[in-house]
């Protein structure tokens, strides 16, 4: 067995690139790669390099949020539930088996991230447990928050949401629970300047697992429900076809007055543009008319693709249109699908760019996917396709670079300054470790399993570091741009 592993390891040797000449080196690197990753092989990279890492106690990771907290930088990382093999991994800091929840890591020194605390989540395996989603707001920015507090909002398993005070990130304190007894939860959004939160939930009387419950969390200790929201046909008492479920949303706040909702995961996606003021202040009973009232438009996608992340970038100057009398700048929404099935068992899930400048006539203008042949990703094991993008709007990358978690193809760095022609300028696929969990597909009545990186989510901080986390338990990797990608981002 050992010799076989070594043989495969040698056949999989790749070259780590860390500086310019992205295209040629990228081709060389990925052409050299054979299908499966092996322990001990170096990461695959182009114009991105590893700065530091943490194993996150070998917990399956979902959403990372990086928060500048005083003079420290803290990463809050949500986790899925445990695995069949290890439902409740042991927390070495307590010596106890704890259901996956939220990891809190001090990343002030990104080369030496320090694991501070694990808050257990809901019992349950995979998507049925854990605490997948995390958002963080300072008390001083919230209208009625405790100025000394830092609040972390998290979805807890499928059943509800919680707010914790993480002012001392090593000793978080539960503040309150919201909406217990739900059918499901998912990716929330919290406006830190107003306190308005959009919580993806499954209200028990709605016909879908995921819709939005809008709360005023300006005083996190005293949540105030504003309304429920979703697509017509999902509301209580309706009959007939049920539209695809909500996945998440991003609000541009009171100034932008728009919320971009994404529905669908890997199928039947819908990007919905909503008037925030009408949503918050319009009639709230979930009748068909009231649900339609705040909608400006919606853009249905192919039945083959979902809308996992809907990331708005308004007023982007388009160089090609600079001399045009009108339309020099465009409002763009980047839409990221989520791959669901292992080993390319579904239509390709990828990245789309929609021009929403004329809001009632949004139009898809471009797309991006990782070339499968560049790494034989359909044979590597696990999922191949997109999942999510960074959501930070910090100036360091906003409207210039986007980072896409692409499961077994790692993270991909895109130059999006011309969103009509997005261009990959770098990538990083971490090495697997002994903790990396297998991914299986049925074959001839049995499971055939492979081990591969499953980069699930990515986030960036104001310093320009890129944080990627792994769904297959490999942990957190902190990266930085190098070479041409760094120059494209305008970094020194």
């Amino acid at each position: 067995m050992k010799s076989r592993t070594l043989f495969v390891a040698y056949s999989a040797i790749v070259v780590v690139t860390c500086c310019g000449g992205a295209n040629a080196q990228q081709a060389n690197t990925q052409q050299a790669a054979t299908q499966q990753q092996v322990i001990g092989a170096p990461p695959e990279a182009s114009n991105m390099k590893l700065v530091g890492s943490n194993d996150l106690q070998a917990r399956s990771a979902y959403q990372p949020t990086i928060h500048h907290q005083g003079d420290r930088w803290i990463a809050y990382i949500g986790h899925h539930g445990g695995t069949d093999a290890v439902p409740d991994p042991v927390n070495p800091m307590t010596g106890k088996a704890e259901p996956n929840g939220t990891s809190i890591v001090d990343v002030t020194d990104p080369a030496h991230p320090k694991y501070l605390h694990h808050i257990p989540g809901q019992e349950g395996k995979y998507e049925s447990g854990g605490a997948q989603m995390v958002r963080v707001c300072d008390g001083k920015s919230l209208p009625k928050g405790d100025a000394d507090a830092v609040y972390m909002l998290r979805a807890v398993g499928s059943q509800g949401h919680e707010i914790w005070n993480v002012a001392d990130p090593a000793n978080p304190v539960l503040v309150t629970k919201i909406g217990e007894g739900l059918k499901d939860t998912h990716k929330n959004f919290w406006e830190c300047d107003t306190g308005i939160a959009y919580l993806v939930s499954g209200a028990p009387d709605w016909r879908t697992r995921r819709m939005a419950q809008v709360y005023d969390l300006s005083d996190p200790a005293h949540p105030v429900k504003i309304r429920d929201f979703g697509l017509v046909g999902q509301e209580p008492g309706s009959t007939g076809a049920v539209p695809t479920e909500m996945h998440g949303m991003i609000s541009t706040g009171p100034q932008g007055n728009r919320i971009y909702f994404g529905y669908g995961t890997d199928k039947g996606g819908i990007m919905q543009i909503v008037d925030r003021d009408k949503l918050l202040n319009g009639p709230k009973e979930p009748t068909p008319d009231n649900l339609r009232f705040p909608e400006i438009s919606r853009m249905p996608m192919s039945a083959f693709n979902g809308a996992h992340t809907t990331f708005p970038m308004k007023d982007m100057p388009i160089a090609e249109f600079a001399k045009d009398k009108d339309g020099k700048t465009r409002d763009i929404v980047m839409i990221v699908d989520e791959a669901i099935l292992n080993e390319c068992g579904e239509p390709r899930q990828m990245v789309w760019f929609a021009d929403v400048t004329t809001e009632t006539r949004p139009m898809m203008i471009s797309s991006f996917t990782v070339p499968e042949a560049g790494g034989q990703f359909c044979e590597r094991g696990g999922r191949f396709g997109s999942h999510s993008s960074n959501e930070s709007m910090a100036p360091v990358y906003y409207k210039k670079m986007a980072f896409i978690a692409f499961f077994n193809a790692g993270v991909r760095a895109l130059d999006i300054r011309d969103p009509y022609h997005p261009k990959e300028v770098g990538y990083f696929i971490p090495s697997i470790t002994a903790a990396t969990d297998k991914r299986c597909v049925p074959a001839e009545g049995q499971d055939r399993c492979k081990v591969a990186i499953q980069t699930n989510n990515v986030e960036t901080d104001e310093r320009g570091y890129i944080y990627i986390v792994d769904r297959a338990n490999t942990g957190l990797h902190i990266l930085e741009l190098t070479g041409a990608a760094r120059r494209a981002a305008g970094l020194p």
Partner: protein
Amino acid sequence: MRGLLIASLLAIGTLSGVAAALVAHADGPTPRAGTWREIAWPFPRDGWPAGRAFRCDAAACGEAVELYVRPKIGFCNCDSGVADDDEVDRVADLDLISQRFSPLEAGKAVIVAEMAGRARSYDLTMVDGSTHAAIGFALSRRCDLLVAVAQGKGEAANVQRVATEFLGSDNMTRWITVALNGG
């Protein structure tokens, strides 16, 4: 052109052979063996690959009944399975036939092909305003679904009975098992 004709004949022959094999082994006194025949999948392409469609004529099933069945590989509720009737409303492909449907009653827990799930009866309002009876099935195994919907102009109870018997026949069970195993 000649090649196309031969290919078409071969395809029809293959399809008929599959259907004959299926109906020849159908269990139970009703519908009688040989009464369900495979027809072309009648719906446009959507997010899931096409499934299989069958028709049972009035002479054998009391009223003409059609059944559409397909696996849906990749279902997020890996642990909880088909949790409630809303899930049946969402996934059972009723919307392929008509966007307008109303449940007749609460669904029931069922087991078909060793898969647990729920079945629920509906009234479908068709484009021409007529009403059809339908039954939707949603069954899960691990992270995958098997969905089926049967419709007819007759009594809901009869549609439910003949559809349930056919879905549970040995050959359908074998096909379902293979389909969910990546076959």
